[in-house]
């Protein structure tokens, strides 16, 4: 295990803040549309269903991570459970996936600018600026990124809270009710996007090697998950309640479309810049987060001393992938809504439990 420099350690609170702020990107992007498509007007109950499944997953994760030693993250745990060779192969696959994931997310982020604000623009400038900014942050220190996430998260929550309050006047309860037993299937399917968001925390486990182990480890993510549930429910109430499930399911950026129509007291309007600020901050953190993890895995695989060149390299490859990944937003939407969540869900809810079971079977945990 390579030595961890003191200035690169973070607290579990900071790790949670980083994961939580990063998952606001998929929250705004995926959440209103997919649950509305699956569950209709009952979509706002999907986060509660996801929270129940998420609580079980976090309980499992806590049991798993209780067995980690100080300075161990998912990389080291994979080596321990599967053996050095297989563990490193798994970590390498994760790094490759994160580089690809970052590339697609970067392109999706750029396309969203074009479909909502800068119609008929080119994605190049958005990919370049966002890629450079997030790549720079990923190549910097983990502690700085975590602190940045704490600050940005506070701003994101503040803006979300304000936007939610302003949008309440637009919400029609009739668009959210009634909820019938027949909606249960849709509600459960609608929970999948939120579980996909929570899977971001599975990648965050790679960074646990920088987190000082405490007896309370694993409790904090539960509190964050409850906050995520509240935020997700609020987003669904404001979008489906204002625009109806029938419209939301056909929109590309329902959250943005609804925000665009908010008028406060008749003189504050067109506040969508706040939302753009939200998603720029969340996209920035998500990209920096995945590139930093990918860089960290690559550094460990190569036995390097500094994460910086590996994270910068991961960002560079992702940026190139963002240019090459697709030339139309329809394909990207399918990839971002179905392909990528499927892999993330498999990583969090299949791979991690499988790793745990193999580790237990081999007597390594």
């Amino acid at each position, binding site marked *: 295990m390579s030595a961890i420099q003191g200035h690169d350690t973070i607290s579990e609170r900071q790790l949670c803040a980083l994961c939580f702020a990063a998952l606001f990107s998929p929250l705004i992007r995926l959440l209103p549309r997919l649950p509305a498509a699956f569950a209709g007007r009952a979509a706002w109950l999907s986060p509660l269903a996801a929270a129940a499944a998420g609580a079980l997953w976090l309980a499992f994760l806590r049991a798993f991570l209780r067995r980690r030693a100080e300075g161990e993250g998912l990389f080291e745990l994979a080596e321990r459970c599967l053996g050095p060779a297989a563990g490193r192969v798994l970590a390498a696959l994760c790094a490759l996936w994160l580089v690809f994931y970052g590339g697609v997310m970067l392109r999706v982020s750029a396309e969203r*600018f074009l*479909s*909502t*604000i*800068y*119609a008929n*623009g080119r994605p190049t*400038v*958005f990919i370049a*600026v*966002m890629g*450079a*900014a997030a790549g*720079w*942050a990923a190549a*910097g220190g983990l502690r*700085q990124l975590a602190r*940045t996430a704490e600050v940005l998260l506070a701003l994101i929550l503040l803006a979300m809270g304000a936007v939610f309050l302003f949008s309440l006047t*637009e919400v029609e309860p*009739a*668009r959210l*009710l*009634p*909820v*019938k*037993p*027949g909606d249960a299937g849709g509600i459960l399917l609608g929970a999948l996007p939120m579980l996909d968001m929570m899977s971001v925390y599975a990648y965050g486990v790679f960074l646990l090697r920088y987190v000082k182990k405490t007896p309370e480890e694993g409790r904090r993510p539960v509190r964050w998950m409850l906050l995520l549930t509240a935020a997700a429910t609020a987003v669904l109430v404001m979008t489906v309640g*204002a*625009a*109806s*499930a*029938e*419209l939301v399911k056909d*929109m590309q950026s329902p959250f943005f*479309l*609804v925000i*665009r*129509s*908010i*008028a406060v007291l*008749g003189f504050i*309007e*067109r506040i969508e*810049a706040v939302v*753009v*600020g939200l998603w*720029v*901050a969340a996209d*920035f953190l998500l990209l920096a987060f995945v590139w930093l993890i990918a860089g960290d895995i690559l550094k460990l695989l190569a036995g390097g001393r500094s994460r910086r060149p590996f994270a910068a390299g991961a960002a560079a490859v992702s940026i190139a992938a963002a240019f090459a990944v697709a030339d139309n937003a329809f394909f990207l939407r399918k990839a971002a809504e179905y392909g990528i969540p499927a892999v993330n869900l498999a990583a969090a809810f299949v791979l991690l439990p499988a790793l745990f079971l193999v580790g237990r079977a081999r007597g390594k945990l």
Partner: protein
Amino acid sequence: MKIRALFIIGVALALLTGCAGAGVFADYREVEQLEIIRTIGIDKGPEGVTVTADTGVEEDGRAPKLFRTAAPTLSAALEQLQETPRGRRMVFAHTEQVVIGETAARAGLAGYLDYIERATEMRIGTGVFIVRDGTAEDLLAACAGEGSSAADMLLFLKTEIRNMGCGFVYTCGDIAAGLASEGCALAQAVERAPGETVTEEERAMVRPAGFAVLAEGALAGYLTEEESRGAALLLGKVERDDMTAAAESGTAALSFRGAGMRVRPLFLGGSLDRLSVAVRTEAAVKEASEGLTLTAAETRRALAQDLAARETERAAAAVARSQAMGLDFLGLCAAAERASPLRFGALRDRGAADIGTMTVEVTVSAAVRRTFDVADPFSVRGKGA
């Protein structure tokens, strides 16, 4: 070093949001270089879509500017307006209302709603008006004068119509949501004062003309004024309305508000017997004829009964029209499903809840709760009378 790096990252991200003036596209304009459009009129013409853009009354009270163009589609027409060199850039981001001529509305609104939802500048919260027996272009042109514009009149209607009790201005989002979920929706209709006897000033006015009923994406008909008032009451869109009610000892001008309908499906045996639609109104006395003893409970009850009977007629007329058209634009079935998600919901899921064939019982109850400052009217006859 770190602070500098953070600063550079912050500036780069701010540029992406377009907030930082220059933005990545550097298309910043001074407000003097902009022509802010407040109302867009849409008509059907030989070329496809005729668009009339209205700026509203200028800040110094000058008459509004109207811009007209025609193109095969709405987006092409707006683009054409933009491309006509006027030295100013058209801004549609603050469009408050869309006015659609009757012919265009009968041909179908789906394309216009689609554009408004899709366009990055427009908002789904934009109010929609349908011009009854006329075109949007004529309406906007007739109202344009020194200190007056259709844009300002429609904005006034949008904010004040709830105090008139005769309608409600639904937005593009409301209409699209209604059409998508129930297959029908209401939109506020407007018209110019008709007839030869009206004054010039009246001729340049926009007035509410009841609700327009939209079905399958197009205008299907209009509600009469009484039906529209009944519909507004049922839908809880009446903040204030006035009516003169009579009791034995005299008459009173009442100001009342409705609380919206309460719908209950009533089942007999295993099948639906009827829908019970109830609305409660509260009234206050604004003016009373001499001799009316408002302090007497029976007088207040009589006034309330008169009010309730007449409002019941209006509400029942709106329901009857909905049933006659076979369109649940009042949302009675949706409301019944909320009241009885399992039994009535099952009916709806089976497609067996047809508004056209079910029995609907409408009841409006009223209560005269208060008067303003004076209880019983002053006696003007002195003590000897």
